């Protein structure tokens, strides 16, 4: 029995069903990230945990207490909103203690809690200001302070970093992670940013179309995607997905694709592919598995060398991304920054097949 249980929960607006039987068990102290494109139902699910939207069917429990129909203020949760939702007419101190005041906490306790949280977030010097006089990062801190002060069972974060500029976002991401490490409170965090999902979470639920596509640790999600959607959604640049034909024999399985000139390229794959001999599959190769020969993982078991024309190079500082053509598709490779490649030239490349994955083109599910 989990700390936070989401048990076969659905949500419908009239005849339109936006969440289909979601099941998630969250352990105490876990950092669960709900990630997916807009409209996938992740914010709806979060709002249902918060009690801001009704549950159409199924059950949500926190600490084994059924939350269906319980008012948001009685669930012992705290929420950080995308827009921060700071009360514009109140000072920072009032914003943070408003919830305690509503719950009838005596003034001296409120002030002690305020001092504790303000110290933790280093916002002591902002307490008298109004939200309008704060920068984006400061507002974000105050919004977190308002959630922290309640000492809740579960923190809910609704895309809290999406209104910040790129640098601040990375800083705040680290701070949230530190905060979680220090407090050990259970967190449910919604984002559409797969990097946030990977870096912050202890477990990720990838959502699309009102379904959980996959629930697992960041490593499971990244290395063992359950279907093409998860494979393509997680990772940046996203996974290269190539039409291939599978040949299975006594020596093992080989996926055959065509290189830029149309010559067949035979790539060994590992796994149980019984019954797939001769059939069409989708081969997934992450950009970092297509690299310059010197950059290939020395511990890898199956590395295939190939020579291919480089169409585009994108030096990103730490790495150089290149676009080349395989099986008639543009594919992206990730080379070391000092790899000697130029657009329009033929270059030596290496494909690390250890982490290659195969999918059924019809069901889009993982095979092998």
């Amino acid at each position, binding site marked *: 029995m989990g700390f936070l249980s989401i048990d076969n929960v659905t949500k419908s607006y009239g005849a339109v069903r936006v969440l289909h039987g979601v099941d998630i068990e969250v352990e105490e102290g876990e950092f669960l990230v709900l990630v997916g494109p807009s409209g996938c139902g992740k914010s709806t699910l979060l709002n249902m945990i918060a009690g801001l939207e009704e549950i159409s069917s199924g059950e949500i429990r926190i600490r084994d207490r059924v939350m269906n129909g319980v008012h948001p203020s009685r669930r012992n949760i705290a929420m950080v909103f995308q827009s921060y939702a700071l009360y514009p007419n109140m000072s920072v101190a009032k914003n943070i203690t408003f*919830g305690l005041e509503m719950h009838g906490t005596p003034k001296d306790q409120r002030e002690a809690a305020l001092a504790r949280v303000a110290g933790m977030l280093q916002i002591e010097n902002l307490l008298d200001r109004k939200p309008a006089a704060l920068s984006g990062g400061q507002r974000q801190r105050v919004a977190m302070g308002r959630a922290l002060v309640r000492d809740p069972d579960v923190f809910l974060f609704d895309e809290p970093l999406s209104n910040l500029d790129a640098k601040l976002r990375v800083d705040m991401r680290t701070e949230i992670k530190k905060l979680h490490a220090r407090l050990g409170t259970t967190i449910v965090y919604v984002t559409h940013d797969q990097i946030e999902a990977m870096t912050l979470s202890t477990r990720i639920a990838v959502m699309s179309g009102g379904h959980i596509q996959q629930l697992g640790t960041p490593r499971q999600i990244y290395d063992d995607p359950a279907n093409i959607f998860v494979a393509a959604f997680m990772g940046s640049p996203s996974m290269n997905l190539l039409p291939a034909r599978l040949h299975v024999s006594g020596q093992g399985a080989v996926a055959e694709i065509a290189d830029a000139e149309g010559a067949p390229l035979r790539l060994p794959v590992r796994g149980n592919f019984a019954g797939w001999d001769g059939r069409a599959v989708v081969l997934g190769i992450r950009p970092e598995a297509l690299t310059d020969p010197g950059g290939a993982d020395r511990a890898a078991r199956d590395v295939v060398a190939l020579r291919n024309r480089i169409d585009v190079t994108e030096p990103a500082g730490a790495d150089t991304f290149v676009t080349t053509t395989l099986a008639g598709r543009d594919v992206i490779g990730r080379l070391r920054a000092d790899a000697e490649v130029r657009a329009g030239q033929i270059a030596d490349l290496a494909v690390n097949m250890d982490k290659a994955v195969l999918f059924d083109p019809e069901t889009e599910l993982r095979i092998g």
Partner: protein
Amino acid sequence: MTVEGASRTGHAARALIYLVLLLFALFYLLPFGIMVINSLKPLSEITGGNMMALPRTWTLEPWRAAWSTAQIGVSPTGLAPYFWNSIKMAVPAVALSTIFGAVNGYVLTKWRFRGDTLIFGLMLFSCFIPFQIVLIPMARSLGILGLAGTTPGLVLVHFVYGIGFTTLYFRNYYAAFPTELVRAAMIDGAGFFRIFWRILLPSSGPIIAVSVIWQITNIWNDFLFGTSFADFDSQPVTVALNNLVNSSTGVKEYNVHFAGAIYAALPTLLVYVVAGRYFVRGLMSGSVKG
């Protein structure tokens, strides 16, 4: 064209604009100016001379007369008691319609329910009902309620008639108010009225100004409801002014009439001068964001 030449035409165009604006301002001020000038003259100067001329003898007597001694209908009371009637009518009616409009707007945007747009549509509809249509049903209703011919009766009429407008204003203003704030307050444990009082109302200054100005102007200047539903002792100042001007006995004291008309217009004028810029600001904030 040189830069200097361009700036010279710029100055010329600017001068022309100001000239035109000045002319229009004078044109619009003229009627009020004539009223003020003639209210400060003895009657003989008006009947025997030029309405446009400045007074030869300045006097405040017409103002005193209009306020406290002029013949209104049958009694020589001046406008003073009716002015108070208007205040006793307008202040509660404005306050009530603004408060109810605010609560309606809050419910219609932040506590949506099935059929809320229909309800709002019907309330909006009330903005377009001509005054004349409601006279007879309203007279009957006031009679049943025992409020016929009283100031509370007039307050009720204006309050009910104003709700449509104030609801429209507040609904559009609150539609632009972030719903996440309401949700945050819900999680913080604030209830329906606490959220309204502590979160929404403190941010409603501009739209309250709009609602109050609009309602004061309409209610203070109303003549039809005042003349239809009020008794002699509850008539608002607009009706009394009409009775002053139309008194059939004695000579027409134009200077007193002018002074009386200014008395009747003064409160709305004052409200515009004091709060006019909030009015424009509030209308803008509602329309642009909503």
